[in-house]
């Protein structure tokens, strides 16, 4: 889960990572409450999209009047389709040097990857492409620790200012601790800056591994503050993986691979999916009826294709869910069902014992896709 800058910085606080004093505001009135920063300050739009500076989403304010003026401008601003709901106001510091640092997982090496560069504050992808020698890449074995020696070597190789070696070492170790102990998928700081007030992480791009939610109470709080579309929200509360798409065929399937594949097959028959909805492994009857409830709220759906290949998911439980959700109901749209795999025979028996004129059972994925796209006549 990708965090806003202010959320990443609140995690910096938990790991003793130096960052500017700041104040978070959702409206102008907030500025009258406990605002105690020293001017000048920087007003930063909180959006999850790059290029906010160029779009006018970052402004310097030297006085209270300027702060109000810029805050007014930026709050509510639209940056590449993202509405600014919050601004982060930070004490501005004099920047002497700007570096780049990130920790992520290199999936092909199956190791953590630290990237460090003296060319921070700019487009790091361009640096990597044009001057790869300016980007130091260090793999860290997850079964071992990141030693100070390895970091020092990276600092030297990247030609960072050695005068600040100890401070850099400390902040890099703390950021690595946030990455590992904080169960982050990504910790990226650009710039990691040497300022008049010392070495500081001036920006934050942090992404959390939500599989680790069970061991981090703070993840819940953070998640609550990240806006998601209402339809996706209700699906999430029911344990469904739902993404809204542009087409008209509602899709319900088990397993991300099969659902993606269902989208592809529907496209082959000339249709397009209204959504991606994965009920996951081991779904119960109530999961399936919850999935149908979610599609019920989507006005663009004209037919529904339920594609289940049982493994850990049992087709009889899926069939029960379909029956429970549709029994005696006048359905808005036809439902085309394909069941195979674990307990498919039992599942099909349940469906046949509870017929509904808008429910159609097919033998293959292709047949079902064709029927769902071209309509039932």
């Amino acid at each position: 889960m990708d965090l806003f800058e202010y959320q990443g910085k609140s995690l910096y606080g938990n790991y003793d990572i130096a960052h500017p004093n700041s104040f978070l505001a959702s409206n102008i009135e907030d500025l009258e409450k406990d605002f105690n920063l020293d001017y000048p300050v920087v007003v930063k739009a909180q959006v999850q999209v790059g290029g906010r500076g160029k779009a006018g989403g970052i402004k310097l304010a030297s006085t209270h009047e300027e702060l109000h003026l810029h805050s007014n401008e930026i709050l509510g601003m639209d940056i590449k389709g993202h509405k600014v709901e919050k601004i982060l106001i930070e004490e501005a510091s004099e920047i002497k040097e700007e570096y780049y640092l990130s920790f992520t997982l290199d999936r092909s090496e199956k190791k953590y990857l630290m990237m460090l560069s003296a060319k921070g504050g700019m487009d790091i992808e361009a640096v990597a492409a044009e001057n790869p020698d300016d980007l130091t890449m260090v793999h860290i074995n997850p079964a071992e620790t990141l030693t100070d020696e390895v970091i020092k070597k990276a600092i030297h190789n990247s030609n960072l200012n050695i005068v600040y070696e100890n401070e850099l070492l400390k902040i890099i170790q703390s950021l690595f601790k946030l990455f590992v102990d904080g169960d982050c998928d990504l910790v990226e700081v650009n710039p990691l800056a040497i300022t008049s007030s010392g070495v500081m992480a001036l920006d934050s791009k942090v992404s959390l591994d939500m599989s680790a939610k069970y061991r981090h109470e703070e993840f819940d709080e953070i998640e609550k503050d990240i806006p998601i579309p209402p339809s996706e929200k209700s699906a999430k509360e029911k344990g469904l993986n739902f993404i809204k798409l542009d087409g008209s065929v509602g899709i319900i399937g088990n397993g991300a691979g099969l659902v993606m594949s269902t989208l592809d097959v529907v496209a082959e028959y000339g249709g397009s999916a209204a959504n991606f909805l994965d009920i996951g492994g081991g779904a119960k009857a109530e999961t399936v009826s919850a999935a149908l409830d979610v599609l019920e709220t989507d006005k663009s759906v004209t037919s529904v294709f339920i594609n289940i290949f049982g493994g850990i998911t049992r087709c009889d439980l899926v069939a029960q869910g379909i029956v429970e959700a549709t029994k005696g109901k006048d359905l808005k749209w036809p439902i085309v069902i394909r069941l195979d795999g674990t307990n498919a025979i039992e599942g099909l028996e349940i469906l046949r014992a509870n017929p509904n004129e808008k429910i159609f059972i097919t033998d293959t994925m292709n047949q079902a896709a064709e029927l769902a796209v071209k309509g039932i006549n």
Partner: protein
Amino acid sequence: MAILLDENSKVVVQGITGREGKFHALRNRDYGTNIVAGTRPGKGGEEVESIPIFNTVQEAIESTGANVALTMVPPAFAKDAVLEAAYADCELIVCITEGIPAKDEAEMYNLIKKNTTSKLLGPNCPGLISPGKSNVGIMPHEITLPGNVGVVSRSGTLTYQAVHELTQLSIGQSTCIGIGGDPVPGMSFIDVLKEFEEDQETQVIVMIGEIGGTAEEEAAEYIKEKVTKPVVSYIAGVTAPAGKKMGHAGAIVSGNKGTAKAKMSALEEANVVVVSNPTKIGQAVKELM
């Protein structure tokens, strides 16, 4: 022959007293798999449907000679369970558990590699089946048929779809393997391709990938250099919306790789027959046999 798993494999099920653990252990046993033991700390000495339970994998191995572990424990305990099996020298560990934090996966993968000779399949995978011989995991065995096609996939349910297509055309399988789609899978496509290449029973290989990561591109490189057997492939997610990526670190690491198109063209370059729809896998294999 088959790979990794055959009629001589002896399986210990970690988490056999759980609902899913018990259901699938018994299902595997009904198929003919030698389920020789289960483990559950504190329940040693008890039995589940006459399968003896031990407190530790070590004790289970000493008493029964188990060489394969099937791990079906909740995510919070999965890392410790997998490491326990590895340190007890299990040859193959099949971890079905879904939702293990990436840090735990990265740590256990590297600890196993550094300190043991165990092979880890998964996590978040459906397991593997050598049709007619043994099934370890959650794959529906009804759809399989003994034969000569090796199937390897990142996606559980798509593995079933592919196997189903083959069986419908009376094309049997040597071994079907789901490697799992998590960030740090144990065995990779390459590890499994290597086993299939060396297996005399396997004549054709089916490889099913999906968008994200670079595993398919790496497999394509390997196929080009090392695999002499024909390979048929399908990549799921051609029409899936591009996921938004945050930050630049990921982009620097993976470059332009990761899209369905990039994967398909890398595979085509390695002379792999790439099909556009999973239901076409059977026919494509038939033409190669």
